[in-house]
């Protein structure tokens, strides 16, 4: 096992990794940008290095300063968290060349799954069903031909993409070419790569993802699914495990496809294979693989009892998983709400400021993963996630009742948060009846009668 690990991240995920390290008896090295000097992750780590100014490109994305901090402090491994350098295979390679273990998959597996067209072909060859789609679009004619053949709506996606950037749903031929241009520009701005491809779009599908865990000894397990259908502009808001629409045979079929994909990619560490589920006939299609720990990993932890971050660290240290598929049992139901510092009334505009008064939820079945405290300053430089409330119950009803209570308990004065908006969704009749899909939130906001209840 490692003696010392550097955490190349900030916010709640930096804290989550530090907690896992402490439980494993590993010393921790935090990195921070100048305005984050007073952050909890800095205070909780054994050592901390300022790696740059506020702008993430010169601090949390500064590979030389982060690698140097690891070398100077004598860390043996780097945990990248999510976002920032988590899916940067070049960073993973540089870690290896400095004899630092990157806590995640190999650069080869990251490259194979990071390029979406390549991931689709790898998965397809492994026998995983993929959404009908194109390779990189070379000409407007390619795009038109595919859309005519597959039928509208279609979705434009960035080849290098993720996080909803460069994504566009197109409903008719008239707007296709304009949307292609916008998506290319967005992809170029976000990823420095303007390649896009098209996929058929399923309007009322569920987003179901399978958590996999693999070691360096050939053991690959799945930890069941998460239902992340409640999204806004392709950003997940609420996640659940297990999904209310996935029965045992469907779970087995999706998990089998995910395991085939993970094996085909030579995957190690924790990873997630995302599918779209067509609720009309239970057919499912591979969307993409996320080669990192995900924001919503706690719901899986709550229902399986497995600490995914500790598992990642153990796998990176060369340990075998030590459990078999038969040891994974799902218990109860878990739901997670991401609380952002945003104004839901004004198009979810970021809300910055100082949190003057704070009350965090607690009590039975409630877990709150957050880095904020009284006096915390919400800065404009980083994403607006304030924390995640995770509630566990014997069944979905109990988990949602707890979430409703927990969101009511949550108080943060000084900034606007999405907690009241999330509570509206949790109490929505369609949500309670599990009648949700990836465009549920958009439809909710577009329907005045429904929108009026929040």
């Amino acid at each position, binding site marked *: 096992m490692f003696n010392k690990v550097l955490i190349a991240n900030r916010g709640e995920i930096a804290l989550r990794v530090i907690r896992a390290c402490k439980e494993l008896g590993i010393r921790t090295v935090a990195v921070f940008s100048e305005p984050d000097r007073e952050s909890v992750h800095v205070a909780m780590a054994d050592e901390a290095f300022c790696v740059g100014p506020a702008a993430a490109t010169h601090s949390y994305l500064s590979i*030389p300063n982060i690698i140097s901090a690891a*070398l*100077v402090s004598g860390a043996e491994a780097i945990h990248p968290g999510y976002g920032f350098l988590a899916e940067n295979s070049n960073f993973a390679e540089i870690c290896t060349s400095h004899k630092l273990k990157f806590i995640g998959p190999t650069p080869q597996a990251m490259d194979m799954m990071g390029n979406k067209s390549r991931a689709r072909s790898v998965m397809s060859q492994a026998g995983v069903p993929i959404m009908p789609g194109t390779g990189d679009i070379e000409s407007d004619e390619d795009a038109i031909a595919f859309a005519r053949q597959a039928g509208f709506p279609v979705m434009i996606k960035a080849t290098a993409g993720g996080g909803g950037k460069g994504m566009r749903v197109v409903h008719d031929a008239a707007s296709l070419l304009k949307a292609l241009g916008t998506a290319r520009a967005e992809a170029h701005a976000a990823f420095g790569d303007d390649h896009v491809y098209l996929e058929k779009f399923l309007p009322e599908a569920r987003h179901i993802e399978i958590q996999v865990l693999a070691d360096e000894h050939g053991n690959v397990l799945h930890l069941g699914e998460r239902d992340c259908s409640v999204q806004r502009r392709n950003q997940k808001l609420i996640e659940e495990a297990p999904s209310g629409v996935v029965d045992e045979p469907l779970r087995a079929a999706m998990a089998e496809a995910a395991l085939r994909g993970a094996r085909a990619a030579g995957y190690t560490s924790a990873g997630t294979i995302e599918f779209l589920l067509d609720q009309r006939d239970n057919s499912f299609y591979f969307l993409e693989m996320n080669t990192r720990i995900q924001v919503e990993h706690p719901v899986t932890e709550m229902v399986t009892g497995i600490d995914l971050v500790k598992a990642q660290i153990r796998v990176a240290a060369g340990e075998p998983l030590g459990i078999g598929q038969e040891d994974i049992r799902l218990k109860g139901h878990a739901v997670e709400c991401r609380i952002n510092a945003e104004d839901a009334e004004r198009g979810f505009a970021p809300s910055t400021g100082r949190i003057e008064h704070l009350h965090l939820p607690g009590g039975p079945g409630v877990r709150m993963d957050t880095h904020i405290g009284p006096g915390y300053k919400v800065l404009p430089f980083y994403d607006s996630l304030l924390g995640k409330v995770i509630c566990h119950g014997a069944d979905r009803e109990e988990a949602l009742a707890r979430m409703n209570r927990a969101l009511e308990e949550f108080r943060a004065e000084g900034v606007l948060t999405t907690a009241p908006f999330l509570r509206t969704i949790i109490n929505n009749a369609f949500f309670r009846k599990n009648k949700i899909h990836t465009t549920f939130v958009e439809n909710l906001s577009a329907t005045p009668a429904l929108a009026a209840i929040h």
Partner: protein
Amino acid sequence: MEPMSAEFSREIREKVHPAVRDLIALAEERQLGEVAWESDGVAIRIQRNPSARPAAPPLEAGRAPIHDEAPEARMLAVHSGLVGVFRTAGPTRVPRVGEPVNEGQVLAWIESMRLMNEVNAPRGGRLAEILVEDGHAVEYGQPLAVLEVHT
């Protein structure tokens, strides 16, 4: 925690826990290089630069204000732009404390990812102080040296 910068320790003095204030005061009063305190899982370690004089003119990060009077000596801190190991021995000779320096002159190096990166004087003047010991880790933004410059 890494060694705190002079500015940081000054800045926190007003707002931190009285225990930290007391430790800083103790370190200054007794001219101690390092003071450590630990209780209930909280550990505080304060490193004091042994060569720092309490009466030193205030460090100034930017350009000095322009005065009409005769040239006035000002202290200018040189900050680290990198994370690495501070080195005062390298391929070229560096000025000793008290010696004059030219703008751009190499004052020391920061070793980062096996490469030696020069620390250059942002302005000409006299090298008043080196704040970090050879071989010690430095972080981004940490004051490394003090130049006495004329306005």
